[in-house]
C-alpha cells in the first residue's frame, strides 16, 4: 500500500485512473445495457407485426402511414428490398440526426424475421422492388462482365475497387468490401440515399449478379503486389513513399554518416 501511495503523484497516475474509469464504465454498460425486445419468431412474414414494428421504430420520422415526414422521406413504393437493405445493414433506424447521411450501423437492431415482417408491411404501402431471388445474388456470374459494368456504372462513386468515394456536402459512397450479395442487389434496385436507382431494366438480374461476382472476387483480397494501402490510388502511395520510403533511406544515410564506435 505504501508503495502504491508513493506513486500517487506520478504523472502516469492520472492516465491509469482515466483508463480504469473508462474500462469500468464500459464494462458496466455492456452488462447492464437494456436490450431491444425480441419478438416471437414465426415462419411466414407477418404484415401485422411488421406494422407494429413500423409504428414503434419508424413512424416518428416516416409518418404513421409511411407517407413521409419532415425528417424521413415517403416510403410508398420503396419496396421490401429497400427495407431489407436499410434495416439489414443497420442504417435504419437512424441513430442520430445532423450527419449528412445515415451511416452504416454498428449493429443490426432487428432479427431476420423482424426485418422480413417490416419489409412485408412496407411493401403494402406501394408497389416496389421485392427481395431478390437468391439465385441472382450468389455471385457466381461472369466476373469480367461485372467488372465492366461496375466501372461504367459504379466506380465513379464507389472507386475502382469499391473502396468508397466522396460526394458533395459531406455525403459519401461507402466501401463495398464484405457486403452480402443480397444487400448489394437491394441497394442497386432501391437507390438508397444519394445512390440512383438501377432497376432491373437498366441492369438485368444477371448483370447485377455479375457485379456481385466482381465485388466478391475483390473481397478475396488478392493483393498481387503486396499491401494494397486501401486501394485508394496514388495518394496513399505518395504518403507511403514520403513517410516510409524516404524515412528508411534517410535513416540509412544518417547511419552511414555517423562515426563508428
Amino acid at each position: 500500500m505504501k508503495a502504491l501511495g508513493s506513486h500517487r503523484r506520478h504523472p502516469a497516475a492520472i492516465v491509469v485512473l482515466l483508463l480504469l474509469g473508462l474500462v469500468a464504465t464500459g464494462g458496466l454498460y455492456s452488462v447492464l445495457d437494456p436490450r431491444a425486445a425480441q419478438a416471437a419468431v414465426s415462419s411466414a412474414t407477418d404484415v401485422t407485426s411488421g406494422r407494429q414494428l413500423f409504428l414503434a421504430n419508424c413512424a416518428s420520422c416516416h409518418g404513421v402511414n409511411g407517407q413521409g415526414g419532415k425528417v424521413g422521406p415517403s416510403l410508398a413504393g420503396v419496396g421490401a428490398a429497400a427495407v431489407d437493405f436499410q434495416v439489414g445493414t443497420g442504417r435504419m433506424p437512424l441513430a442520430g440526426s445532423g450527419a449528412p447521411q445515415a451511416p452504416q450501423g454498428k449493429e443490426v437492431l432487428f432479427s431476420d424475421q423482424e426485418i422480413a415482417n417490416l419489409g412485408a408491411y412496407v411493401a403494402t404501402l406501394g408497389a416496389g422492388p421485392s427481395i431478390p431471388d437468391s439465385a441472382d445474388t450468389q455471385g457466381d456470374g461472369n466476373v469480367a462482365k461485372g467488372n465492366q459494368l461496375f466501372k461504367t456504372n459504379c466506380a465513379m462513386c464507389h472507386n475502382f475497387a469499391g473502396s468508397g468515394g466522396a460526394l458533395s456536402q459531406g455525403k459519401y459512397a461507402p466501401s463495398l468490401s464484405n457486403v452480402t450479395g443480397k444487400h448489394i442487389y437491394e441497394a442497386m434496385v432501391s437507390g438508397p440515399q444519394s445512390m440512383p436507382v438501377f432497376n432491373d431494366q437498366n441492369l438485368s438480374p444477371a448483370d447485377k449478379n455479375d457485379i456481385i461476382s466482381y465485388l466478391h472476387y475483390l473481397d478475396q483480397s488478392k493483393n498481387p503486389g503486396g499491401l494494397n494501402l486501401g486501394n485508394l490510388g496514388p495518394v496513399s502511395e505518395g504518403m507511403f513513399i514520403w513517410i516510409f520510403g524516404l524515412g528508411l533511406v534517410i535513416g540509412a544515410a544518417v547511419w552511414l554518416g555517423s562515426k563508428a564506435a
Partner: protein
Amino acid sequence: MSPESTPKGAAGLRARDTKAAALAEDHKAKGGALAGWLDDRTSAAKPTSYVLKKIFPDHWSFMLGEIAMFSLVILLVSGTILTFWFVPSAGTVIYNGSYVPLKGIPMSEAYKSTIDISFDVRGGLILRQIHHWAALLFTVSITVHMFRVFFTGAFRKPREINWVIGTVLSLLAINEGFTGYSLPDDLLSGTGLRAAEGFIQSVPVIGSYMAYFLFGGAFPGEAIIPRLFTIHVLLLPAVIIGLFTAHIVLVAVHKHTQYPGPGRTNDNVVGYPFMPVYMAKAGGFLFVVFGITALMGALVTINPIWLYGPYNPSQITAGSQPDWYMGFADGALRLFPGFFEFNIFGHPLSLNVFIPSLVVMPLLYTIAGVYPFLESWVTGDRREHHLLDRPRNAPTRTGLGAMAISFYLVLFIAAGNDLIAIKLGLSINEITQTLRVAVLVVPPLAYWVTKRICMSLQRRDRDRVLHGTETGRIVRTAEGRFFEVHEPMTELERWTLVQQESPAPRELSATVDANGLEKKHTLRERLQAKISSFYFTAGVPPVTPAELAAAAHDGSAREAIETEPNSGGQDEGEKDWVGQLHGGADERPETDAYASHEDGADPGPA
C-alpha cells in the same frame, strides 16, 4: 620517346622496342598490366588519381542528391528491362491471359502488355513495382535535395548554374514520371491524359491545334501512347542524363560545400577521400537504396493497373489523382474558382483552366530557378561561398523558402480533398473553400512564423555562447545569494555558433559626390537598398569576443568572479563556478522590483 639521335637502318627502328619493354616491366610492378595497357592508350593515370583523391565532406544531408542519382540508375536499369515486354501501341486486342476479371475485355495493346508483365511474365510484377517505387523515390529525393540546397544557401556563387540545372532536372523528372505512368493506358492515367488534353485545349488561340497535334487527332487517338513512349524512353532520359552529368561534373569541379565547423573554412574542404572511403560508402549506399526500393516492390502494391481497368473515355473512378509530384497542379485545378472564364472578342479565355494547369508549374519553377540571382542582387554578395549557412542564420531566405513550401503544400493537399473528406468525415465543399482561403493566408503566415523562429534560434545561440549551458546546479554564496552555474562552451563547440557573418545590407553610397553636388540614385539602386535592408531586417549578429568577455563579468564588476571561460577544469570543487554565475538581482533591468538599486555599492558574492 627517346630524344637521342635517330639510329639509322632496321636495327635503329628496333632500338625503341627495348624502351617499350622496359616500360612494360614498369607497369607490371606498379599498376598491373591492365592499368598499364589503358594508360598507354588514354593517359588516364593523372585524372584517375585526381578523382580518387577528391575529398568529400561527410554529412547525411549531402546524401539526398545521391538518393536521386541512385534512383535514376535503378530507373534506367529496370526501365530498359521493361521495354523488352511493353508494347507501346494503342491498337485494340481482346484479353485472354490469366487475370480473370479482364477476360474477354477489349483493351489497348499497351494495357494488355502491362497486364502480361504483371501476371504472366516471371519477375514482371516485381520489376514494374521496383520501377514505379524508384520513380517516386527519385522525385521525392530530388525535392528534399532541393530543399537542403536552398535552405543552406548552397546555390550561391559559384553554384548558380548547378542550381538552374537542378531546377530543370526536377521539372524534367516530374514530366518523365507523368509520361511513364501514362504508358499503360489504364483508367486512372487515361483520365489524367484526358485532363491534359482539356487544358491544352484551353490555351488561347492555338489550343485546339496544339491538342490535335499532340494527340495526332481527336482524343484519345492512337498516336499518344507511342509518342509518350518515345518521350519517356528516348527524349527525356537523354536530356536528364546529359544534364545530370553536367550537374555532378560541376560538383566535382566546385568541390562539395561543407557545413561550418572547427577546421572548416571557405578555402578548404574537410572530409574523406573518394578512395577508399567514399567508394565504399557511396557504392554501398547505391545498394542500400536499391535494396529498400526492392523491399517496397516486394511488399507494397503500387499502381495496380489490373484494378483500374483499361482506359475508356466514358468511365471514371472516384478519387482520381495523379502521382504525388503532379498533385500540386491537380490541387490548383480544384481550387481555382470557375468564374475566371471570360469572353474576349467573341472567344472564350478559360483562365480557370489555363492558369492552374499551364501557368502555375512553369512559374513556380522559374521563380525557383532565378532565385540565386535575385538573392545575390539583393545582398550584393559576389564572393564565392563554400561554407553553408545554417538556415537560422539566413532568416529571410529560410522564411521565403517556408512560404514557397507552404504554398505548394496547400495546393498539394487540395488534390486529395475527396480522400480527406471520406477519411475524416468532412464535407468536400468545406475543405475546398477552406483551402481556397488557406492558399492566400497560410504562406505569408508561414513566412512570418519561420522568420521569427529563425531569429529566436539565433538569439538562443547567442545566449548559449554568452552564458553557457545551464547545468541546473544552484550555488548559494556566503551572503545568501543564489546563482545558477552555467557550463561555458568549449572553443570547438562555440565556433559553429559564432562563425557566421553579421547581417550587412547594401547601403546607398554617399549622397554627395566628390564635388559636393548631391548625387541622385537611380530607381534601381534605391530599390536594391530597400529590398536589401528588408532582406536583412532584424538579423541577429553573432557574438564577438568582446561581448563574450563582457558577459563573463556577471554584472557586479568584482574581480573575484571574473575568470576566463575555460577555467572550469583547473579548480575543482567550490571554485569551478567562479566566473559563471548568472541570475540574481544584478541582471535584472533597473525598473524591476528585484533589481538592486544602490548606485555602485553592490557587494556581489564574496
